């Protein structure tokens, strides 16, 4: 009988909570509090607590696959790696797109960057690369604020950051929240500003009144949608104007680190690059990709993997040694709690194997060797060692916030055909993109929230004869999907909300596309 706690960093949002994994007789059996954690004092949200369940997730893959005669079939590592190197070697660098999950470790992402270099590709990106980079000291210090403006639904997207907002409020701070509905975050507010589609930037400007006192913060939760950079720019603008500290929280646990170590090319431009004929995707759920050749390395059979030509099985966070950089730019250690299942390798190792077959030996024996390279090459990481990160990690000093120019949020025009304004919103049970794959593999999270749903106002529901659970078709100008109704007092009449996430083949993006908001009609499924 053996039992030990092993501390690690949560793979979901960028708050970067640390917690323990309870390891009994070599297997991860539970999550446990890590009271000494510098970010979250041992507390976690439900995603953090039940994240351990993904180690034994139903969707895990433990063998490589190759597409033969149209179907993915199991194969040996030898065969898979030989196939990858033979095929991908035929493409010129600019024809290859390389995508790293923002939930992977710095070491995994950096090793992938090295592979992209080997392949001659500068199309190296991550879903976290949306042109927003802003942190302002430590998340814990937000508790001492005089006033806070929150843009977005942090209580659900970044719960342990929202805790600091609640702390500040208890200490007398005034809180202003801009959100699309009376969300759990909005309920913490003294002043709630309901953002209507197309007027998000104006709503943020209006929130400037809420910035008071010397120690003020503007907090922006990066969501899904093509106008995030514009809204972030509006938030940065009020912060600069009033002298408030500005924080933007990536959706991905290591979104900050992904951009730091080099996956910084804007995701939109890479995905839109028509020269790209082959994709190398590490741990990111990108939906079905159409290209000549797609390699996926992932812990789970994502939709991207289901459509790939080669799938390579990778370790989950609990089986991974490495570092991640959270929203406050604190570099923290993940300690490996268990061995991956037989046949499964850590991401960095898979990449190193591919690279060496392509003729470039990266010379990495372990993640610590990769980290040594990172500290030599990446600004802000210089001088760091695994040993030095053991206690509190390392908080890299704040830098000037950068927000790139992006499309303005579009106004949503309703009409008789599409009379309802639909907005995407985070849920606490699931992450966006790749993190949605994680939560789908945690049965406790699925038990709470097994589907994508649409939340509508109770009056609207009464008028249409919908009750909780009524199956409806949500239709927009680009597509339709069937989901159950959630009747909510907190959603304004004439509007609706939908979780910004993908669950296997079902994705809110079928209706919204790349937009955060759009006009829809909602009808009962016949």
């Amino acid at each position, binding site marked *: 009988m053996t039992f030990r706690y092993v501390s690690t960093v949560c793979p979901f949002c960028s708050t970067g909570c640390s917690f323990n994994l309870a390891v009994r007789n070599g297997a991860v059996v539970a999550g446990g509090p890590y009271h000494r954690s510098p970010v979250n004092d041992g507390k976690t949200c439900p995603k953090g607590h039940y994240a351990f369940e993904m180690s034994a997730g139903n969707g895990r893959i433990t063998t490589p696959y190759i597409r033969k005669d149209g179907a993915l079939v199991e194969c040996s590592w030898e065969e898979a790696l030989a196939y990858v190197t033979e095929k991908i070697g035929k493409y010129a660098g600019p024809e290859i797109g390389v995508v790293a999950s923002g939930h992977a470790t710095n070491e995994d992402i950096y090793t992938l960057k090295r592979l992209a270099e080997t392949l001659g590709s500068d199309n190296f990106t991550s879903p976290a690369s949306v042109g927003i980079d802003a942190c302002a000291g430590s998340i814990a210090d937000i508790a001492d604020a005089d006033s806070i403006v929150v843009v977005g639904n942090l209580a*659900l997207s970044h719960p342990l950051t929202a805790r600091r907002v609640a702390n500040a409020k208890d200490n007398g701070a005034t809180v202003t929240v801009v959100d699309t509905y009376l969300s759990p975050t909005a309920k913490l507010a003294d002043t709630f500003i309901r953002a209507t589609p197309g007027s998000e930037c104006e709503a943020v400007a209006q929130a400037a009144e809420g910035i008071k006192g010397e120690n003020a913060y503007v907090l922006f939760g990066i969501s899904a949608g093509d106008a995030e950079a514009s809204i972030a720019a509006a938030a940065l603008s009020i912060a600069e104007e009033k002298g408030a500290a500005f924080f933007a929280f990536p959706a991905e646990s290591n979104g900050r680190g992904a951009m730091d170590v080099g996956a910084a090319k804007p995701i939109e431009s890479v995905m839109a690059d028509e020269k790209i004929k082959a994709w190398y995707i590490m741990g990111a759920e990108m939906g079905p990709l159409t290209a000549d050749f797609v390699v996926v390395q992932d812990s789970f059979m994502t939709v991207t993997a289901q459509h790939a030509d080669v799938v390579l099985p990778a370790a989950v966070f609990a089986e991974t040694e490495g570092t991640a950089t959270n929203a406050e730019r604190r570099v923290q250690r993940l300690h490996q709690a268990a061995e991956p299942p037989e046949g499964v390798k850590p991401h960095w190792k898979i990449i190193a194997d591919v690279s060496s077959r392509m003729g470039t030996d990266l010379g990495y024996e372990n993640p610590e060797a990769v980290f040594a390279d990172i500290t030599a090459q990446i600004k802000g990481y210089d001088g760091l060692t695994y040993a030095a990160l053991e206690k509190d990690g390392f908080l890299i000093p704040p830098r000037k916030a950068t927000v790139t120019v992006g499309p303005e949020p579009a106004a949503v025009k309703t009409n008789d055909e599409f009379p309802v304004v639909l907005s995407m919103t985070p849920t606490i049970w699931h992450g966006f993109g790749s993190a949605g794959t994680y939560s789908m593999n945690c049965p406790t999270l699925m038990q709470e929230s097994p589907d994508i749903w649409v939340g509508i106002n109770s009056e609207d529901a009464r008028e249409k004869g919908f009750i909780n659970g009524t199956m409806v078709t949500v239709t927009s100008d680009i597509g339709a999907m069937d989901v159950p109704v959630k009747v909510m007092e907190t959603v304004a009449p004439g509007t609706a909300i939908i979780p910004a996430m993908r669950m296997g083949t079902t994705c809110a993006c079928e209706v919204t596309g790349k937009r955060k908001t759009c006009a829809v009609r909602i009808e009962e499924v016949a």
Partner: protein
Amino acid sequence: MSAKGDFVYAWASDAGMAERGECGGAVSTLLKYALVSGMVDAVLAVKKGVDLYDAVPALITDPADVDETAGSLHCGTLLLPKLIKKYCDGAKDKKIAVTLKGCDAKAMYELAKRNQINLDNIIMIGLNCGGSVSPVQARKMIAEKFETDPDTVIKEEIDKGQFIIVTEDHEHKGIKIDDLEEEGYGRRPNCQRCKTKIPRQCDLACGNWGVIGEKAGQATFVEVCSEKGATLLDAAVKGGALETCEPVPQGLVIRGKVENAMLKLGDKCRAEQFEKLGTSEDRLKLIMDKTSRCIKCYQCIENCPICYCVECSTKKPHLVTPGEVNPPFMFHLIRFSHISDSCINCGQCEELCAMDIPNSLFMHSLQLEMEKMFGFVPGVNMDLPVLALVEEPTERRRLTDTGDDQIFNIFA
């Protein structure tokens, strides 16, 4: 031969252990002896992690590893009995010696009553406890109130009403706990309310209070609280691992005074904290308001020593709609109705609450009201909780008929 009710000063025969351990290393010696002699299969204790603020649970089967757990960590706020339930099969068929603070000891009894821990297989080494400080709070307090870099502290202790730190250059700094706590620093709020300072529910209750004279600082005051405790103590002495002597009579008096002072402080803290809750409808409104920010992280349930149900009522869809955040007040009502009679004020539900809801304060206040009404005191003995009578009449009959003292007999 020792017997229940005896008091001794005890210290390790091994000079190394006496040096490594706190107050002569008696506790480490007892744990090690229990393991070496085969009285237990494993020891569950706490060891230092990344620094002295980091208490890490250690399940030990190699006697040499007991040394790692020597010394005390006042920032250790773990609840070990729940770990025995969760990860050691409730000591169903393994014998375990475990170190327990007052709240741990009470948790052990409540879990044992619910048949989640087999007390027959447990040796309980109680540790006197004046309260613990959450690690991150301790670091903040040392930086802000002691104006000292917490990384330079090599020792912390609570003595004579002061929180004392010793830095690398052997400088001592002390601040009165009263003063710290008035400003929101210091011990966890539940520790401030605690009145289990010497855990006599254990087999042995060990501490430094009352060790005076030539043994001051070099021996542990041990109170023998059960036959099992007496057996271990005698065996460790007979085996040459432990040395003991009679306590100085005045030491006994001093120990009593320290305990009484702590109990009075506990009463004072209770009065102050509960007063802020208001009464009757005001209290209900306050509880409803504070719990309304809950994000349903389930940490209160996962870490509660009273919660053990496989099918938790908070997960029954007809009571609490799954996935709804913030959850309805029913979520908290279920907790209050199921736990409050037996709450042992360990503080885990508050310390680990993602939204800093003072759950433990609420639950403890309800428990004390229930105690007034029904006379049931949780955590002190194997008496059955109030709710067992309400929920399990059949069980109750079975217990009467068979003379069994274990409810929900899942081991049978």
